[in-house]
C-alpha cells in the first residue's frame, strides 16, 4: 500500500475536505470509534475473520470479466469488476461485513443503519442476522413506499425498519434519524453505508471497500502482466464503490480514475444528483465536502432515476480527488444510464444495477486507444431495478 498523497490525515481531512463537524453530543461516540477502528482493522484476528467471511460468505474474489462485445463496441479492452456477483448483489456487503466485525470486537450489540433504496439496509440486516445482533434501519417514509421488495427482505432478515418522517423523507433524512438515534444510544454501533459522514467513517469504509482494487491488481497482473489498467471507471453517489475501486491506484498517477455522477434529467435541470458538477463547499452529516444546497445553505433534495446515487453530498475523498484533478468527474443522465444497461444486457448477458449503468454510460463519452485496458466497476446487479427497466422498455 503506497497511499500517501491522497490518504486521510489524523484529523480526518483529505486536503480541505472531511473532518468531523458533529454536535458535541456525538463527540464521545466518534472518539470511541476513532480510537479503535485502525487498531481493529490492522489486527491479525480481524484480517483473518474478514478474509474468511469475504471468501466463504460474500463469495470473493469476484471475477474480473473481459467483455468481448463491449470491447469491440468501444474499440478497446474492457474489463468488468463483478461486484454484482457478491451475496446480496452489490459491493455494499464488503463494508457491512467489515463494520459488523468492528462492532463485535467493540462489544456492541445494537446496530443502527440508514438506507436509501434499501441496498445498504439489506446488507446490514444480513450481517446482523449472521451475527445475531439487533438491527434498526432508518429509511425515508417515501423510500419505504418506493422500495417495497427491499423492505420485505430487511424484515425477513429480522431487522426493524423505522420510517424517517422528517424533511423530505428520503436518504438524507434517514441518515439524520440514524445519527439522532446514535446520540440517544451512545452504546449502539452506527453502521454507515458509504464513504460519507464524520471521520473516521469515510476512511473506515474506504479501507473496507479497498478489497475491490486489491483484487483488480492481482487479476490484471494475471491477465495482462500489469497490475495497473489505463482507466478505472466507477459511479459515485456517496462514493463507496468508487473509493474501493480507486484505493490502491490513488498514488499510481498513470492510472486514470473516472468517477461518474448521476445528472438525473440533466445537470442544469434542477433534477440532478451531480454534486461535484453543480455543488460547492458545504457541510453534511458531519463532513466538509461538496454539497448541493440553496443560497441560504439549505440542503436540497437530489434526483436520479437510480436510488443509490441520489445523495446531495459526496464522500470527502471524492471532493478532494475532484479538487486536485486526480479523478475526472463525468455525469450521466437517466436516459444514458438506461441505454447503457440495455447495451450490457443484450451484448454480454449481464443486467447491471442502475447505479453501475451510470459507470457504463461514461464509456460513450470517452475515447480510448485500442491497447488501453479499461476497468469498469460493476458495483451491483439489476434485479432490484427490473420495474424501472420494464417501464423504460415499454415506453
Amino acid at each position: 500500500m503506497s497511499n500517501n498523497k491522497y490518504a486521510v490525515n489524523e484529523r480526518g481531512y483529505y486536503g480541505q475536505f472531511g473532518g468531523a463537524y458533529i454536535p458535541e453530543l456525538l463527540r464521545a461516540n466518534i472518539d470511541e470509534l476513532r480510537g479503535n477502528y485502525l487498531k481493529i482493522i490492522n489486527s491479525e484476528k480481524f484480517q483473518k475473520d474478514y478474509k474468511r467471511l469475504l471468501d466463504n460468505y460474500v463469495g470473493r474474489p469476484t471475477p474480473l470479466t473481459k467483455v468481448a462485445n463491449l470491447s469491440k463496441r468501444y474499440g478497446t479492452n474492457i474489463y468488468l469488476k463483478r461486484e454484482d456477483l457478491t451475496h446480496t448483489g452489490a459491493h455494499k456487503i464488503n463494508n457491512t461485513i467489515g463494520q459488523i466485525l468492528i462492532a463485535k470486537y467493540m462489544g456492541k450489540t445494537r446496530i443502527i443503519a440508514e438506507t436509501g433504496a434499501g441496498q445498504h439496509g439489506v446488507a446490514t440486516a444480513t450481517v446482523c442476522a449472521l451475527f445475531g445482533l439487533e438491527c434498526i434501519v432508518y429509511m425515508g417514509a417515501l423510500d419505504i413506499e418506493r422500495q417495497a421488495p427491499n423492505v420485505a427482505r430487511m424484515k425477513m432478515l429480522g431487522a426493524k425498519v423505522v420510517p424517517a418522517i422528517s424533511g423530505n423523507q428520503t436518504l438524507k433524512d434517514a441518515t439524520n434519524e440514524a445519527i439522532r438515534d446514535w446520540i440517544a444510544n451512545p452504546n449502539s454501533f452506527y453502521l454507515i453505508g458509504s464513504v460519507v459522514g464524520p471521520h473516521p467513517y469515510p476512511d473506515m469504509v474506504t479501507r473496507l471497500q479497498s478489497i475491490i482494487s486489491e483484487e483488480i491488481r492481482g487479476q490484471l497482473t494475471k491477465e495482462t502482466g500489469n497490475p495497473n489498467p489505463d482507466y478505472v471507471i466507477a459511479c459515485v453517489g456517496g462514493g463507496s464503490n468508487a473509493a474501493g475501486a480507486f484505493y490502491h491506484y490513488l498514488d499510481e498517477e498513470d492510472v486514470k480514475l473516472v468517477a461518474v455522477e448521476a445528472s438525473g434529467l440533466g445537470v442544469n435541470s434542477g433534477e440532478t444528483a451531480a454534486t461535484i458538477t453543480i455543488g460547492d463547499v458545504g457541510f453534511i452529516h458531519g463532513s466538509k465536502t461538496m454539497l448541493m444546497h440553496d443560497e441560504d445553505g439549505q440542503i436540497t433534495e437530489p434526483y436520479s432515476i437510480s436510488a443509490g446515487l441520489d445523495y446531495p453530498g459526496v464522500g470527502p475523498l471524492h471532493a478532494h480527488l475532484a479538487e486536485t484533478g486526480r479523478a475526472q468527474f463525468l455525469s450521466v443522465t437517466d436516459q444514458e444510464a438506461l441505454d447503457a444497461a440495455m447495451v450490457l444486457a443484450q451484448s454480454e448477458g449481464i443486467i447491471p444495477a442502475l447505479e453501475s449503468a451510470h459507470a457504463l454510460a461514461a464509456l460513450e463519452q470517452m475515447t480510448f486507444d485500442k491497447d488501453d485496458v479499461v476497468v469498469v466497476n460493476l458495483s451491483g446487479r439489476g434485479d432490484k431495478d427490473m420495474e424501472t427497466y420494464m417501464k423504460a422498455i415499454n415506453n
Partner: protein
Amino acid sequence: MNRIDQLFQNKGKDILSIYFPAGYPNLNDTVPNLQLLQDKGVDLVEIGIPFSDPLADGPVIQIAAKQSLDQGMSLKLLFEQLKDVRSTITMPLILMGYWNVVYKYGVDAFLVDCQSCGIDGVILADLPLEEYEEEFKVKFEAHGVYNILLVTPQTTDQRMAKIEKATKGFLYMVSSSATTGGALEQSKEREEYFKKVANLDIPSLIGFGIHDKASFQHASGFSNGAIIGTAFIKALEQGSAADFIDSLS
C-alpha cells in the same frame, strides 16, 4: 460589556433562557416574540436559524424549522428582521444554528451582521472546538461575538477543561444524551455531572429536557439557570406563549 456577561454579573441564578426558531410560527413573528419574552421578564433568548437538516434536534424543533423555512425564512431575512431590534430589545440575544448555513452566508459577513444587529453570542451546534479555535476564533473575537460551547454527560474531564477555557459567556450544559425535546433525567449520576460542571469557573445553563416549572427549578438548582426550547415552541404553536412563561414562575 457584552450583555451576556452583564446578565450573569447582575443575576447569578434562575436565569431563564428561551429558544424559538426565527420566523415561527409566522414569518414576521421573530421580533414580536422577542418583545413578548422581554415583557414577561425572560433573561436571555436564543433565536434559532432554521436549517433543513438539524441533527441535534428532536421532532418538534425540526418541524418548526421546516415550517419556518417553508414560509420563506432565511438567514438573510433574519438579519433584516433584526436590523432595528436594539431600539426595543435589551435582553442578550444569541443566534443558534448549524454551520452549513453560516458558512454559506460567509463567516465574515455573518459576524459583521451579528455585530451590527447587536447579537451577543452564537451557538453553532456542529462547529467543532478545534476548527473554531484554529480558523475562526480571531474573527469572532474581533466582532465581539461570543461563541458558546456545549458539554454533555459523555464529555470527558480532559475535553471539558478545554471547552471551559474556550467558551465565552457561559457553558451550555446538555442535560442528557438525547436530541432536544426529551425528558429531563433525574438520577444520582446526572446530578453529579451537573455539580461537576457547576464547579467550573464559568457560569452554565442547563438545556435539553427542561419543559416546565419543576424541571426549570430542578435544573436551576445545579446551575445559573436553564434553557427551554421545545416546550416553548409547543406553546407558540398553541397561541399560549405568554401563559407558558407565566407558568414557569
